C-alpha cells in the first residue's frame, strides 16, 4: 500500500495527532506547540465523531483515504473491524474542527458491532456504489437503522461513490436524490479515485455541525456525544452539486 509515499511531515503529524486526542473533547485546544503550524494559530477546535457505513467494497476506506491523505489505491484489502482516523477541516470563518472518523468494515459479520460506532456519532456518511443498485438498498437499511437507533440530531449524508464509472452506472442521480430529499439527507456523488466531490461532502457536513460548545456536561467524557440542537441543521436534503464549492477546505491539513 502506498506507505512509502508518506513524508516526514505527515509522520510528525501522525504522532502529534495521537497525542492530541488525549484531551476530552470538545474542548478548546490551545497547546500551539502540539499542533501543525498551519493551524496552531487557532484558538479553539471542536471534535466531531463521524462514522462511515455501507456495503462492503463500495469505497468507504477509499473515500476516507482521499479525504485524509489525498491518496488513492487501485487495490485495497477489505477493512478489518474498523479503522480510526482523524482529519482537521478549516471552516469558512477560519475556525477548525476535527473529524474523528470511524471507517467501519462493510462485511456482514461486523454488522452487530455497528451501534458501537454510530452510537455517539455526530454525523454519518452512508456510502453506496453507483454501479451496484443493491448497494443503495443496503444504504437504505443503514439509514433506517440510524434514524431509529442513532442520536436524533445525527447528520446523515448519502454518498454515491465511484462516479468515475459512469458507463457502468446502475443507480441514477434522480433516484438517489429523490430518496435523499424524502429522508432529509445530504446527498452527493463522489469519486474517491478522481477526488471529485470528496472534500465537498466532508466540508458540507462540517458546516452543518453546531459550532457553539455543547450545553451542559452531557457526554463530557467522549468527544463525540454532542447533543446538537435539532434545529441547527435546518435545511436538510441539500444538493451539494448546487452549492458553492467549499473553497480551501481541503487545505486545512498539511498532509
Amino acid at each position: 500500500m502506498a506507505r512509502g509515499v508518506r513524508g516526514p511531515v505527515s509522520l510528525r503529524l501522525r504522532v502529534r495527532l495521537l497525542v492530541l486526542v488525549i484531551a476530552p473533547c470538545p474542548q478548546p485546544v490551545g497547546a500551539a506547540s502540539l499542533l501543525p503550524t498551519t493551524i496552531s494559530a487557532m484558538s479553539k477546535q471542536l471534535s466531531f465523531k463521524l462514522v462511515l457505513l455501507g456495503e462492503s467494497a463500495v469505497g468507504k476506506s477509499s473515500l476516507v483515504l482521499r479525504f485524509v491523505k489525498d491518496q488513492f489505491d487501485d487495490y485495497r484489502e477489505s477493512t478489518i473491524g474498523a479503522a480510526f482516523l482523524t482529519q482537521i477541516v478549516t471552516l469558512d470563518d477560519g475556525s477548525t474542527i476535527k473529524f474523528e472518523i470511524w471507517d467501519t468494515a462493510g462485511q456482514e459479520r461486523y454488522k452487530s458491532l455497528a451501534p458501537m460506532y454510530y452510537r455517539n456519532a455526530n454525523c454519518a456518511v452512508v456510502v453506496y456504489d453507483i454501479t451496484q443498485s443493491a448497494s443503495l438498498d443496503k444504504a437504505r437499511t443503514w439509514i433506517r437503522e440510524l434514524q431509529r437507533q442513532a442520536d436524533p440530531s445525527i447528520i446523515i449524508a448519502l454518498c454515491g461513490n465511484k462516479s468515475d464509472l459512469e458507463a457502468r452506472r446502475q443507480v441514477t442521480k434522480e433516484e438517489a436524490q429523490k430518496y435523499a430529499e424524502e429522508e432529509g439527507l445530504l446527498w452527493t456523488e463522489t469519486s474517491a479515485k478522481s477526488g471529485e466531490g470528496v472534500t465537498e461532502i466532508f466540508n458540507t457536513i462540517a458546516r452543518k455541525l453546531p459550532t457553539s460548545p455543547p450545553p451542559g456536561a452531557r457526554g463530557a467524557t467522549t468527544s463525540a456525544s454532542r447533543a446538537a440542537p435539532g434545529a441547527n441543521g435546518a435545511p436538510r436534503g441539500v444538493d451539494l452539486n448546487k452549492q458553492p464549492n467549499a473553497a480551501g477546505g481541503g487545505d486545512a491539513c498539511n498532509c
Partner: protein
Amino acid sequence: MEHTRPSLRTSAAPRSRSRSHTPSPSARHFPRLLHSSMSYSSLPSSAGVAPTVPTAPALPPHLSVAVAHDPSLPSSSSSSSVSGIELGENGSSSSGGMIMNTEVDVGTVDVEPDFKPPEGDAKKALREQLRRSLSKREAASDPSQRYQPKREPTEIDELESPSFDAFPVRQYFVLTNAGKPVFMSRRSPSDASTNDDRTNIMGIMQAIVSVFADDGDKIRCINAGRTRITFLLRSPLYYVCVSSWREPESVTRTHLEYLHLQILSVITASQLAKIFERRTNFDLRRLLGGTETFLHSFIEQLEFDLGISNASLCALKMDPVVRANIAEILVPPKELKDVLYVALVSSGLVVTLVRPKKHSIHPADLHILLNTLSSPSLASTPISWLPICLPKFDPNKFLHAYMSHLEEEVPNGSDGENTDGIAVRLAIMIPDKDGFERVRQWAGSVAEALSSSGLLESIASACRAHAYLPMDIGIPGLRHFVYKSRSLVQITMPAWAKPYDELDSRRRLVTLYQTLHDVLHARSGQPQGPLKLQYIRTDKESVMGWVTHPFELYLAMSPGLPKSAVVGAANAIARWIKREEGKLFLRDAPVF
C-alpha cells in the same frame, strides 16, 4: 474445549481407515531407521538425488538415517559441557510462564465433537461407488507403495525433475460438512483447474469423509504415491491439504489446525455452532468475507515459519536493558487493569509482551495475533479496532484489539535515514468492546513516551541488526540451525544463508527439520516413544535434532562432515546461545 494430539488420537483408533496402513509412515519405517543407525556412514549417498523426506511412503534405499538414543551420541566431554547449561526454570508449562509451553499440543478446539454428516438419499450410490473404487485402488497400489522396489526409479525421477516440481504448491481447502466451499488456497501458476473444478473436488471430499463417517470413523489421510491428502475434521468444517512435500502427517495437521484457529479468530466456535445448527447448508463465505487474506498469508507463512512448527515465538534480538525499558512503558495503568495483553511487534518479531500475572499466552494465539497484525489492511491504517477471538484463550468469546502503528517523530532537518519503513505495531487486547476511548488515550501516551525517549529508534535499529548469519557463530560447515528454549518457549535461528537462500532448498530443510521434530516427539506414534537425538544425512546436507531438558536444537551441516563434527557443532551452538541468550530471548517481561 478439548485438547487432542491428532496423531495420537488417530493412531489409537484401531478402525482408522486411513489409506496408510500403519498409524503413520514414519512409524512404519521406524524399525528401519533404527537398523540403519549402525551403518549410517557406510550407506551410499551417491544416488544422485536428495531423498527429501525420509518418512515418505517408500523410503529410498540410498537414504541414510541414523537414530541414536541419548548416551551414545555426544562424546563424554561435550556432553558434560552441555549439561552445564541451565536455562531457567523447567516447569514452564505452568501458567506462570509468559508463554504457554505446549510442546506437541497444537491443540484443537472441537466445535462440535459429535460427528454427524448430513444424510442424503442421492448420496448413497456415490458412497457405494466410492467405497468400491477406494478399496480397488488400495488393492492395486498398496503393495507397490510399501514394498516394491519398482517404484523407486519413478520416485527418483521425480526428485531429479526441475526444482519447481519438487515442492509443488500445497493446496488447502476448507469446506462445510455439507460440502459447501469455504476457502481454497491459491493455485500454482501451472494448475489448469478452474474454480468450478475445485468446487467439485470439495464435493468429492465431503463424500469421502462421509463414507468413513457412516462407519463412525474419521478419515485421516489418503496416500497416493508422493502425494498425501490430509483431512482434519472440525465439524461443521472440514480442512483438507494436498501436499507432495513428504512432510510428516503431524505437520500438515498442525497447518490445518492453524487454519481452523484463524477462522475461529473471526467467527467464534459458539457462533459457528449456532449458525450451522440453524442452517446446515449455510454458505460461510458470506461471513468470512475479507478474511481470506488472513488464511492466504498464514499458508504462505506456514511454509517456512519454524516458530509455528515449534509452537514458540520469535523475539526481536535486542539489548535486554532497552527491552526492559520498553516493557516498563507498556504496563497498563490502573484504569486499564482489564487489559489482557499488550504486545509490541516489529517486522513480525516480538519486541515485548506484557500480560496480567494470571494469564500465559498460548503460542497459537500469539501466531494468530501476529498473522492478523500483518494483514495489509491493518498495515495501511494507523489505528484499528477489531473484534478478535483468541481460540486458545477462549474459543467462544471475542476480545477487542486496539492496533496502532507507532512511527518515529522525524526531527526537522535530519537526513531522514532512521526509520526507513520499519513499522512498530502496538496491539492491546481488552475484553471490553466499549474500551476503545480508554485504550486510545493510554496508547497515545505510550506512543509519545516511546518516541520521546528514543526507544522507538532503538527498536528500529535492533530490527536492522536482528539478522545474524550461521557463519557468525564460527562453526565450520554449519549452514543453519534452530534453537528452541523450552522454558521460554522461544526460538532463535540465523538468517537463511546459502544454499537456503534458494526457496526449494529452504523447503527441503524445513521439511527435514519437521521430520526430525516429528520423530523426536514421537508425534506419529512410533513404538519407541520420544527420542533425544535423531540424525539424518542426505547428499545435500546432514541434519540433526537434539532434545534436552532446557532446549531443543536442530542443525544443518555440510553433508561431507563426520557425525562427530555435527555433534561438536551442536555443543558449540548451545554454548554460543548461552552467551547470547540475554539478547536473543525475551525474558522477565513485566506482569501486572
